[in-house]
């Protein structure tokens, strides 16, 4: 990517993307409206073969309840995300059957009420099962691609994945706070895997005429966020990792993904700034799945607004999927009314201001920071390692400056970590080749170079 599609941070706003995306039924993302994206998951139950009929019934029932709530609240557009659990990818027919079931319900509501709903199917990355994982050879990748194909055929409108290339290094790197390991995972291994995997996904999507949505650095940056939430890792590191992950997630778009990008990729605004693709985001409405310090700010430049995932359990007012549908609908109504009344910028700025100085991770999510991060990535050229280093240094600088100007207060230990991260980033080799040579021995045995096209 040589240039950016947005010419200023101010230009970025919820509901509008420079490159809107339309799915088969005409539902468009990024063209002046924020659309709710509802994700649900099963309550405690197992996925054994004998439970398949019960699971299918439950899925249909959940979809009915979501669609019904949309009708009641006059919500004419919605996305339902079906995030596979391991077995649903591992047994491609099973995942495809559920896709078909959900699509039938959606179609029924289109006919009876004219509700436009799209189905996003997120296949699970089952390559993560073995250590070190086989990313390109072996039956896991074949099964995953088969799963994508069958789901596309069965009615998916958008294909996504939370891919895990490099996670075999980053899991340990996160535990020991190894910044170089994180860079190796996110700046060297991750982008290579994304390039490989997304070419395959895009080709399947084209064959079936569905939308290749996008990926998320969930397994890296959200793991870091959760570790920080549990007091296991400094928040400043989680903030740096967030931006470090952006070049990796951008790689999907570089080989043909068009958005809407996946909800739990909090790095998405950077990618929107560069490429103009519509993005799904999640914040306060995903507190059902995990805590975050990004409740409002995450919505600032979203095109879809999501709840990440909620297990289907009964509450006083109904079951959780429809309850969260309702919350998402009201959030979207507010944003869409602001757009209609020409007051969107005010609402965006309020959402940003409400969280910006809550936490270093929120600071990073400020659209101005995200926009500048995008520029840093573009200026770094095509090389993913250089992009990852440059944007990590930028993230570090942003937090440091906010601390120095008393906009954000860091505990003593956090401040020490910020210093430490800064020093490591400062003294890195500038070239990937040199970097790889310097870390290869350290991670030997933990990853298979050939599986990433490396020697």
């Amino acid at each position: 990517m040589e240039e950016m599609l947005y010419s200023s941070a101010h230009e970025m706003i919820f509901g509008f993307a420079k490159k809107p995306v339309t799915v088969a039924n005409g539902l468009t993302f990024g063209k002046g409206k924020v659309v709710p994206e509802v994700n649900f998951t099963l309550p405690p139950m197992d996925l054994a073969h004998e439970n398949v009929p019960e699971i299918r019934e439950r899925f249909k029932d959940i979809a009915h309840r979501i669609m019904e709530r949309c009708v009641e609240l006059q919500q004419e557009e919605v996305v339902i995300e079906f995030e596979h659990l391991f077995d649903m990818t591992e047994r491609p027919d099973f995942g495809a059957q559920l896709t078909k079931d959900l699509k039938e319900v959606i179609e029924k509501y289109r006919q009876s009420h004219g509700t436009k709903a799209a189905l996003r199917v997120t296949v699970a990355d089952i390559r993560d099962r073995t250590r070190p994982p086989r990313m390109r050879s072996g039956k896991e990748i074949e099964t995953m691609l088969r799963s994508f194909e069958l789901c596309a055929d069965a009615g998916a409108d958008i294909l996504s994945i939370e891919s895990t290339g490099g996670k075999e290094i980053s899991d340990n790197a996160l535990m020991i706070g190894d910044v170089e390991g994180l860079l190796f995972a996110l700046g060297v291994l991750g982008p290579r895997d994304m390039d490989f995997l997304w070419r395959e996904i895009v080709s399947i999507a084209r064959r079936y005429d569905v939308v290749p949505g996008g990926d998320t650095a969930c397994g890296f940056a959200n793991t870091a966020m959760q570790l920080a939430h549990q007091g296991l890792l400094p928040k400043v590191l989680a903030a740096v990792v967030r931006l470090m992950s952006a070049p990796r997630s951008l790689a999907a778009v570089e080989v043909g993904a068009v958005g809407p990008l996946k909800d739990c990729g909090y790095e998405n605004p950077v990618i929107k700034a560069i490429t103009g693709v519509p993005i799904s985001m999640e914040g306060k409405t995903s507190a059902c799945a995990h805590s975050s310090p990004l409740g409002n700010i995450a919505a600032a430049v979203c095109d879809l607004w999501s709840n990440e995932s909620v297990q289907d359990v009964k509450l006083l007012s109904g079951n959780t999927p429809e309850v969260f549908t309702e919350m998402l609908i009201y959030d979207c109504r507010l944003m869409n009314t602001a757009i209609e009344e020409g007051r969107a910028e005010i609402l965006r700025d309020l959402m940003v201001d409400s969280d910006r100085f809550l936490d270093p991770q929120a600071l990073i999510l400020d659209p101005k920071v995200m926009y500048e991060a995008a520029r840093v990535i573009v200026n770094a050229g095509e090389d993913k390692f250089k992009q990852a280093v440059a944007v990590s240094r930028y993230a570090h600088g942003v937090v440091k400056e906010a601390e120095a100007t008393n906009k954000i207060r860091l505990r003593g230990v956090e401040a020490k970590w910020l210093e430490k991260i800064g020093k490591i980033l400062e003294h890195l080799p500038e070239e990937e080749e040199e970097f790889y040579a310097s870390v290869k021995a350290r991670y030997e045995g933990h990853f298979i170079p050939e599986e990433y096209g490396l020697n």
Partner: protein
Amino acid sequence: MGTLEKLRDALIEGKVEEVKHYTQQALDENTPAKTILDQGLIAGMDVVGVRFKEGEYFLPEVLLCAKAMHAGLDLLKPLLVGESGQSAGTVVLGTVKGDLHDIGKRIVKAMLEGAGYEVIDIGVDVDAEKFVESVRKHKPLVLGMSALLTTTMRYMKTVIDALQNEGIRDKVKIIVGGAPVNEEFAKSVGADGYAPNASEAVDLVKRLTAA
């Protein structure tokens, strides 16, 4: 400052080479190995534990200190007689079938190792047979299962039933953990305990193995 205080402080700072150095120095000064262990290494780790609980240390610091402790311990082991030279016991850990979430379990492993346990990590997506086989093979004091998905947590019961059927349920204490799991669930599947996080998992294992 005496050698043992220097050793303790070096450990608290996670200085691996210094810990080795002061352990050796204390030995050269004829300090009994057990005293070095208690007043140097364990005293240091106690402070590390407190700092972690109080938010002064994050996981990377704790792991570094644990590494330093093991470096010192390696020098002491041949000289420690009886119980004190051995590990606190063996724990087998795995994430249950259908679940690939790994990092929580790995953190539990690291913290248990820091507390002196020998931990055998049998991986993710582990089926009942493998759990049974590992209990047979390693004869652990404790078996720990992790699950992050609502659709895999119930498999913990399948594993416990399998151990029961094989007649070895009573030979091992069983603990469970992971985001969707709680105390009530642990009881309902017949586990001996539940821990919400890694440091409480260490306390739980200590309690269960002391009983």
